[in-house]
């Protein structure tokens, strides 16, 4: 599914990713943990094609396609989805309208028929039900004036609608109280499937109580310095990052 090899990336003249390797198979859920500033968001942004980063070495392939050859929208149409750590507000742009345009852009690129208003509404109702969400956010402008929790829920809802092959959730848990966290985690779990892989980026182990990963990786100083099963997360919870990061540095 996703194959990242020797990835190095810089912002300005600062190297942030310093040779990152990651293999994600179909249906797998990988957690990437690491201290603040270790490069987790940078990794997510580089994969999804945000401007401002320069890839200086390495490759990233999604089902064999070189992601770095593609524009952000082409990556999305290929099935890549990023749930933003800080979802962006689009004043005046109706949430439902936005989603319909996005979904139809993706469908069109795949040679599928665009959904008309009726089928779109039907699909939306279905997904809301799966995620146990109500439709109160849909009539509002995208993320505009949303609370932190609403923004994150909206990201998960977009993910449900766009049905990506690979979803990267960047600190979807940060800033959420326990109830909001549970709603988001339930949503993510409902969207797990053998065809969909996920990379769950988080700073805290807490989220992994609700979303059980197949693999856990520790990202520090721009590299994956440790990988393991979900027990690694518990170990991190107990001992903090220091013991691995410092151990590695020594």
């Amino acid at each position, binding site marked *: 599914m996703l194959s990242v090899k020797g990835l190095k990336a810089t912002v300005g003249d600062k190297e942030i990713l310093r040779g990152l390797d990651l293999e994600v198979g179909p249906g797998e859920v990988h957690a990437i943990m690491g201290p603040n500033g270790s490069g987790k968001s940078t990794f997510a942004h580089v994969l999804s*094609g945000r401007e401002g980063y320069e890839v200086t070495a390495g490759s990233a392939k999604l089902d064999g396609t070189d992601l770095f050859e593609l524009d*952000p*929208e082409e990556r999305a149409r290929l099935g890549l989805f990023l749930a933003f750590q800080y979802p962006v*507000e*689009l004043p*005046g742009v109706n949430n439902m309208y*936005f989603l319909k345009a996005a979904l139809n852009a993706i469908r069109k690129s795949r040679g599928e028929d665009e959904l008309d208003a009726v089928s779109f509404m039907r699909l939306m109702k279905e997904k809301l039900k799966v995620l146990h969400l109500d439709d109160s956010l849909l009539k509002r402008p995208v993320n505009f004036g949303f609370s932190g929790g609403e923004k994150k829920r909206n990201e998960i809802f977009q993910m449900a609608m766009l049905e990506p092959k690979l979803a990267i959730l960047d600190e979807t848990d940060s800033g959420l109280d326990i109830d909001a966290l549970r709603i988001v985690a339930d949503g993510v779990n409902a969207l797990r499937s053998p065809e969909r892989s996920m990379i769950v980026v988080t700073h805290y182990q807490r989220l992994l109580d609700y979303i059980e990963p197949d693999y856990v990786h520790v990202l520090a100083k721009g590299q994956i310095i440790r990988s393991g099963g979900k027990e690694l997360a518990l170990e991190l919870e107990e001992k903090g990052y220091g013991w691995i990061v410092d151990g590695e540095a020594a």
Partner: protein
Amino acid sequence: MSAIPAEAITAESKADTVGQYDDLVNAGYEHGFVTEIESDTLPPGLDEGVVRAISARKGEPEWMTEWRLAAYRKWLDMPTPTWAAVHYPPIDYQAISYFSAPKKKEGPKSLDEVDPILLETYQKLGIPIEEQKALAGIAVDAVFDSVSVATTFREKLHEAGVIFCSISEAVQEYPELVQKYLGTVVPPTDNFYTGLNSAVFTDGTFVYVPKNTRCPMELSTYFRINTANTGQFERTLIVADEGSYVSYLEGCTAPQRDENQLHAAVVELIALDDAEIKYSTVQNWYPGDEDGKGGIYNFVTKRGDCRGHRSKISWTQVETGSAITWKYPSCILRGDDSVGEFYSVAVTKGRQQADTGTKMIHLGKNTSSTIVSKGISAQHGQQAYRGLVRIAARAEGARNHTQCDSLLIGDKSSAHTFPYIEVKNSSAKMEHEATTSKISDDQLFYCRSRGLSEEDAVSMIVNGFCKEVFNELPMEFAVEAQKLLSISLEGAVG
């Protein structure tokens, strides 16, 4: 109310005595017609003879000729305005031809009699003159060059007693109404361009809605500039009598041109007691090439007079075209409790320049006005919002809310805001908000990461920015306006 003749408008008066200009007019046939239709064009130049010739060609009564001549004589001494933030080479008013009419032996009685080449041109422009569109409830008074040639739905309007015809026809058929109201909102001496327009206006629209009548459909005029070097001087006069309501749509498009084309229209609206006029414009004239060459100069004076108590006038405009726009649709809130509104979207890109805004003149008690201006500037586009809100000493309890937002795309475009506020009554309540924003990289990336192209993302964000204005447009027009905005911003990013 007098009956409206069912025939379409007479394209050319038979009773003309043009004298010395006849030969020149006839010589003009060979020149520069884009649509292959025989036309009747005066040679370039302007003097009293030309003013008389225009009036004669239209078979106008003496009072109209004299009105034009008075305007012309005043105009000679008027300076061109220089205060607007737009730049263009001086216009040679003697190089412009002031009259051009599609040549017809007789006026068409129905669409079947309209020149098929004309109809084809309308179709290319997507003008809803055909029945299908008419069925959608829009009556069209299409202006081709300067003379109206086709009108639909007159019967239905007739039943309601609404007059909707060309101003030329109104001069002939309803002289008492025209004489009573023409020039009472925008006097010929108002400014340089209104002086010129008053002297040489060739056609335009007249609407009269009688007392306590709700106009049964949206009235719509599509303007089009076709003949090279022919300045367009439209004149529109809309009168809503007591307790009446009318919604008027104006839209236009022009083919590519090399020479700059001058357009100096005058629009006058009059709302009597309890009457309401809603005037919507979607303007998409040729903006010129990338260097601004060949675009339309749009110097328009639009003003509404809320002459009656509790009357209301709303201007809504979406401006995407023209090389230069100089335009300030305004309201004079004369009646007590009258309401003025101005909702505007203006787009400038390439080398387009726009100096636009509004004036709200509060004279009556408890008058209120709302201004919502959304300016979008991309590439080298330059835009100035100029708004005047004046509260007269006797305007007790006046209120104004102004919201003026600019959106910049790229780093070479510019937007400036010049709010002028004059308050002579301390009971006035004034609110002013202004913002300038850019489409952020974050917003573009967010949209693109969801599968939308950069252009779709821009168009979505821009349409979102303009929403409050689009909400004011009649439904069908709003859809067209959105499309137009998307098309006009294609390639404007990056």
